[in-house]
């Protein structure tokens, strides 16, 4: 033991003298989040919902691969954990040309890969040109770097004038460009053979770093290094002693000596492992909250932490504007406004989320300090009598006396309500909606589908009404395919989508407010003036509140259970690139 302590001490001294002097440090400190400087040591154990399919972030869209990538790799820029502002990471600073088209990133000096190889601008250019913009990479993002200027497709270009500088040249200004540069950067010296530059085919990148790769090959620049992997059971990580972040006391991060990700499938199994003390922290749902809170109050050695959420997915209910039977009704703003009055948001928040949710934005998260517009005054509160009266006024009355209202064509207002049957939360919401709709003579038949098939059901237009939750992001530009009419995920009004993918959207199908929203997103993409952009997106949220393309239901809070021996805890969704509080966690 004393010997270990001595080693730690010597390591710390060496680090203080050399390590931080070598890598250009970034001092991070979040007193407002309750963080304090701590000492290095100990093991933290986190849950992983399943084995990662691959160690290469760009080869598969998967939460587990993303979670691990977040602690092993770095990106050029990252989020401030408190304000969500963009801050330096691997790029120590940057300049943007006056016209907003040339971004010059000055890389952090002295950063090395986990195998000791120096990190240089060549790695960054390699990651962008050979992997991220590789159209065959299954989790790449080629589309992000291809701009349409005057009807012509033009790519962003990447150059490395020297080892410490990366220049990205855009065909046109792009307001959210910096925010998007949270792509993890990968080592050229390890991945070159899998790329076109290294003589392989484009699709070969997906075969790099499967999970049976020797871990010495899988090197990043991040706070932790891969140490062991046992398929189906555990991923072991050790502290990177050369990491470039330091706390205000000069201690280099991360604090934890080891990080173990235990593969535990399913919420109940994870809860059991947490309660048994095998997991240090656990993200839980509102439905699990009462049980955990009871145990905390009864003196268990953990605390339940809740915080408002920026990321995360608020559910909404959507009516299919293009439904063959009810398109005239569902496409009518007055009908959707009437139905909004039959959606009991307060009850969902109280009964389904146990109070740990709030009235959502339309759709921006209330926790978003920049873009959120408080549209609550425009949203209609629950009032079944008013809903019934509004339907009467539209001429949707029960004309045949069977207890179900009839639309003007005479047909019963009876439709399917599709929801994710894998989730008890959505099952409960669907039941509440069905029940309240029934009270005003609107008959909804529940259709449960597998969670993984929900969105494709929506996109195929194979529903009449549907409950879906789509995630919030810190900039509306990142959710443009969902909310811009004609976008690839604008599923509730599919007739606005272009006849051929990538073509001109069908403006003829758009209502006036949809055309305005379309323009807002178009302008928002290139507008560099931040104030003007914020104003545009606030207008969009008001338009959404007034025209209810979808009826937003609730915005769930972040809830986590944290054992008492974990310090500096900040809620971590795990899968958001550039938002990573794990290096700050320490073992008390």
């Amino acid at each position: 033991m004393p010997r270990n302590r001595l080693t730690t001490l010597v390591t710390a001294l060496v680090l203080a003298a050399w390590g931080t002097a070598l890598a250009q440090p970034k001092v991070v400190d979040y007193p407002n989040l309750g963080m304090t400087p701590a000492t290095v040591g100990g093991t933290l154990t986190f849950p992983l919902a399943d084995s990662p399919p691959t160690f290469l972030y760009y080869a598969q869209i998967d939460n587990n691969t993303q979670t691990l990538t977040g602690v092993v790799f770095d990106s050029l820029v990252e989020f401030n954990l408190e304000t969500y502002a963009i801050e330096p990471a691997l790029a120590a600073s940057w300049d943007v040309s006056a016209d907003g088209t040339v971004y010059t990133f000055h890389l952090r000096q002295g950063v090395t890969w986990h195998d000791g190889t120096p990190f240089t601008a060549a790695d960054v250019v390699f990651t962008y040109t050979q992997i991220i913009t590789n159209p065959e990479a299954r989790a790449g993002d080629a589309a992000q770097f291809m701009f349409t200027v005057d009807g012509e497709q033009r790519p962003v270009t990447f150059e490395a004038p020297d080892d410490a500088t990366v220049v990205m040249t855009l065909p046109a200004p792009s307001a959210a460009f910096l925010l998007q540069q949270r792509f993890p950067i990968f080592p050229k010296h390890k991945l070159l053979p899998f790329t076109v530059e290294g003589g392989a085919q484009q699709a070969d990148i997906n075969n790099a770093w499967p999970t049976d790769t020797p871990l010495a090959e899988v090197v990043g620049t991040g706070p932790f290094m891969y140490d062991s992997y046992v398929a189906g059971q555990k991923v072991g990580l050790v502290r990177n002693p050369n990491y470039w972040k330091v706390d205000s006391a000069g201690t280099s991060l991360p604090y934890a000596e080891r990080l173990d990700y235990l593969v535990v499938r399913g919420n109940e199994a994870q809860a059991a492992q947490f309660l048994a003390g095998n997991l240090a922290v656990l993200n839980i749902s509102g439905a699990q909250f009462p049980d955990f809170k009871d145990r905390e109050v009864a003196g268990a050695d953990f605390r339940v932490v809740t915080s408002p959420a920026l990321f995360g997915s608020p559910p909404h209910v959507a009516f299919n504007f293009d439904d063959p039977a009810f398109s005239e009704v569902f496409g009518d703003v007055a009908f959707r406004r009437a139905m909004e009055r039959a959606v009991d948001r307060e009850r969902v928040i109280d009964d389904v989320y146990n109070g740990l949710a709030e009235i959502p934005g339309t759709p921006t998260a209330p926790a978003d300090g920049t873009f959120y517009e408080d549209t609550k005054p425009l949203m209609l509160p629950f009032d079944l009598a008013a809903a019934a009266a509004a339907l009467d006024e539209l001429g949707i009355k029960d004309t045949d006396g069977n207890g179900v209202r009839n639309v003007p064509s005479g047909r019963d207002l009876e439709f399917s309500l599709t929801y994710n049957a894998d989730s008890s939360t959505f099952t409960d919401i669907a039941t509440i909606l069905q029940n309240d709709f029934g009270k005003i003579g609107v008959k909804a038949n529940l259709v449960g589908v597998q969670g993984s098939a929900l969105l494709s059901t929506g996109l195929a237009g194979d529903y009449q009404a549907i409950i879906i939750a789509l995630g919030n992001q810190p900039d509306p530009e990142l959710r443009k395919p969902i909310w811009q009419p004609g976008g690839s995920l604008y599923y509730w009004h599919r007739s606005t989508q272009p006849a051929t993918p990538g073509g001109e959207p069908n403006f003829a199908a758009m209502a006036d407010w949809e055309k305005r929203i379309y323009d807002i997103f178009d302008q928002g993409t290139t507008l560099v003036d931040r104030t003007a952009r914020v104003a545009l997106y606030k207008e969009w949220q008001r338009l959404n509140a007034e025209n209810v393309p979808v009826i937003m239901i609730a915005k769930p809070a972040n809830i986590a259970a944290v054992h008492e021996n974990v310090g500096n805890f900040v809620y971590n969704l795990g899968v958001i690139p550039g938002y990573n509080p794990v290096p700050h966690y320490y073992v008390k």
Partner: protein
Amino acid sequence: MFSYLVRRVAIMLPTLVLVSVVCFVVIQAAPGSFTDRYLEDPRMGPEAVARINAQLGLDRPLYEQYLRWVGGIVTRLDFGYSFFANRPVSTVIGERLFWTIVVAGVTMFFSWLVAVPLGIVTALRRNGFTDAVASFIGYVGLAVPDFLIALLLIALVLQAGGTQVGGLFSPRYIGAPWSWAKLLDFLNHMWIPILAIGTTGVASVMRQMRANLLDVLNADYVRTARSKGLTERRVINRHAVRTAINPLVSMLGLSLPELINGTIIASIVLNLPTIGPLLYDSLLAKDQYVAMSLLLLASLLLMVGNLLADVALAWVDPRIRYD
């Protein structure tokens, strides 16, 4: 015997082909596609999804996808590619094989170890108190699903302040070299799957053994053995039990495919790193070659198990001859 074996193997081949067609059709008939997972991600446009479909060969006609898969198996023993893990199916299945065999082997060993003697005892004490108690427990074990027993055991362990609530090891022993402490930790975890999964097996084996033995005990040769003046112990052990156990041999053979699909839900609940959860995931995600290979493997094991059982029967029971 040899010609019998050849005949049996020859029949297996067309059966396997038929099974592979059925597996393929069933998986194609399920709604959704592997690439559905890409739709919500803001990084993925419809063109990108189309490109991935092409990479995976999902844009080819169904018969072509099927023939390619079967062709790979026949010519190179190549079971295809896991869409999800970006590597050959055989390696994906291979890394789970060891623990699957260990868990299935150990639970089966213990359930037989308990069930066979219990079956003998209950047959000898027919309709007595022991019989009633053992049969009751057996029926309950048969009636209660294994995952429910698993959940109850986990709840009990938690209540008692234990830490072994799933998995095969405590976190610190996973991936550590074998030691006495690790073995002890393993046994400390393993009793839960043994109890949860084994209980179901105990009941059926016990009932089978009991019925067989009761039949045999009424047979003429047992009466003859008794009348020769042999001790009751010798009559039971040498004459009755040896004959009564024969049908269990075929039961053993038939339980071979349970390696793959016997304990899916219990394995998920107990967080065991076995093949069951892999099959479940691959079916949900439509990782078609993994799912199809596992289903094919399960039917192959069933046929091989059947064959082995028949051969073993001929070996242990002199009355059975196949030629």
